[in-house]
């Protein structure tokens, strides 16, 4: 159990409208990620779902029930916060059990659920410790454990990996993905990191300035972005945007081509250019070219290549993988 329907959710702080009519349908067991630049309203939307903020208008239904007037504790949700938000005066075990204790769950059942969750997250050795005695990664696992023991319809994650270092982030990401497969629970996850979004989500919701730009699976967003914002936001390095008139195409404004969809040659090709800078990453080589036709473009080659600054090269875009956008920045198919 765990579906969610949002219908024209609006939220304003004073005159400032943060959410401008959000519609969303999340099915049972889906992993949905809200992604967008800072200030796009994704965290506010999550708080509205959690009941920590009231929506100015619109309806929220969890498992088909309208929850606008239901307090957060009774919505059947659990939330994991960026800053862990563990209770400093309680042990790991009490941190995980507090929500159930408040709800009046029998002691034996609390014990059982905490044991189960802590074995799932390998937290058994730390149950008697306080949060101050744990490392960052352990604290975040406790926070996740606190969410699991509540057995909610809906898991909400608010940038849970942002405070962890790079190695731990990958590891915890994996752990969350495994958890989702194992619990088959509905999860809603907020992040500004597109890698997290692409790797974890069944469905990504791209938000910008309080509006949904596009909803789709990671590959849909990568292959068929609905507009220039999504095209630019998903994929790294960023898609190249070239004014259509420079390439002699009429009727559209911009042409987009991903750096990995451009072939490079020293002898011949469509766009002649000079290498401005080369980044050798081992698995990838990223080149910045100043071309005569297309202007400054980024090219991503797989593997090692011996291009260096000031080399003259020819770039050839893969015509079939070009994206075309009209004057309103919407994709033309």
């Amino acid at each position, binding site marked *: 159990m765990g579906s969610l329907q949002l219908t024209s959710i609006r939220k304003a702080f004073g005159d400032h409208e943060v959410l401008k009519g959000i519609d969303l349908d999340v099915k049972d067991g889906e992993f949905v990620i809200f992604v967008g630049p800072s200030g796009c309203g994704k965290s506010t939307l999550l*708080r509205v779902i959690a009941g*920590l903020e009231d929506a100015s208008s619109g309806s929220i239904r969890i498992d088909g029930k309208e929850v606008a007037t239901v307090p*957060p*504790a009774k919505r059947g949700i659990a939330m994991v916060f960026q800053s*862990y938000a563990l209770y400093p005066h309680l042990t790991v075990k009490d941190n995980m059990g507090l929500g159930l204790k408040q709800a009046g769950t029998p002691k034996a059942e609390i014990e059982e659920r905490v044991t189960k969750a802590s074995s799932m997250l390998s937290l058994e050795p730390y149950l008697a410790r306080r949060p101050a005695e744990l490392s960052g990664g352990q604290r975040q696992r406790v926070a996740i454990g606190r969410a699991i023991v509540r057995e909610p319809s809906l898991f909400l994650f608010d940038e849970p990996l942002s405070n962890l270092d790079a190695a731990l982030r990958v590891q915890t990401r994996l752990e969350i993905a495994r958890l989702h497969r194992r619990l088959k629970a509905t999860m809603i996850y907020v992040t500004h990191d597109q890698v997290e979004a692409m790797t974890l989500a069944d469905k990504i919701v791209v938000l910008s300035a309080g509006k949904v730009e596009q909803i789709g699976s990671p590959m849909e967003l990568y292959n068929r972005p609905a507009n220039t914002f999504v095209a630019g936001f998903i994929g790294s390095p960023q898609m190249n945007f070239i004014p259509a008139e420079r390439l002699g195409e009429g009727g559209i404004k911009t042409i987009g081509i991903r750096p990995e969809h451009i072939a490079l040659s020293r002898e011949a090709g469509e766009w002649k250019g000079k290498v401005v800078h080369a980044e050798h990453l081992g698995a990838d080589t990223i080149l910045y070219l100043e071309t005569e036709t297309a202007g400054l473009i980024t090219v991503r080659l797989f593997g090692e290549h011996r291009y260096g600054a000031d080399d003259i090269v020819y770039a050839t875009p893969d015509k079939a993988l070009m994206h075309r956008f009209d004057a309103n920045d919407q994709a033309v198919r």
Partner: protein
Amino acid sequence: MATARTSYLRTGLIHLALISYTLIALFPVFLTLVNSFKTRNAIFREPMAIPTPSTFSLVGYETVLKQGDFIGYFQNSLIVTVVSIALVLLFGAMAAFALSEYRFRGNLLMGLYLALGIMIPIRLGTVAILQGMVAAGLVNTLTALVLVYTAQGLPLAIFILSEFMRTVSDDLKNAGRIDGLSEYAIFFRLVLPLVRPAMATVAVFTMIPIWNDLWFPLILVPGEATKTVTLGAQMFIGQFVTNWNAVLSALSLAILPVLVLYVIFSRQLIRGITSGAVK
């Protein structure tokens, strides 16, 4: 460290400044203490001298303990101070929590209104307060003092505490809400422990003016049963003759309880900095 040698002069000057400030601050206390153990003649002949066997005398303390009910005065002062601090901390923290946590119309104005008392001395309202107390029948009761001191301490307490409460992580409070804690539980069990250092600061700032106050006890509670220590010490100061032995002894004794309270709060100040909830 290589740089340590070059900063000897700097460190020395800083220490010199701090030591001289300490001396200046402690000198009146020292003078009071020393002279409280001397005979009357010795006080006037050589006020700076340390008591010697020939000038040592406990006559001041004897007078204080014999005349008037000094134990009772101490009790009054302690009751008034402790109750006032407790009320200031409780109400101040609650108001500060409301101001920092909830968005409501007039939040900013309310905050300014509550802070107004920092700028306007409460003594300007003495006449009105006295009339009010007379009308309420509270003259010569400790309740009158507690009420006045609570009002006097609240503005600064709210000002300091609301700044501190803004620093308590929103996530922590929200986690509490999701776990089903009431707003009171969030306030008492999550927020208050985290702002304990600020509470100790406020307690110290509130305590000292209350303990030392002469004005309100003199006006509101001059009766024998409700006299405070500072007021009690006044009876040895006459228009023509002042019993300096007794005055100095009373003041020396009055330092003790406030010192004890200060030590308690300053320990809290240091111990309060526990965390680990939030990165």
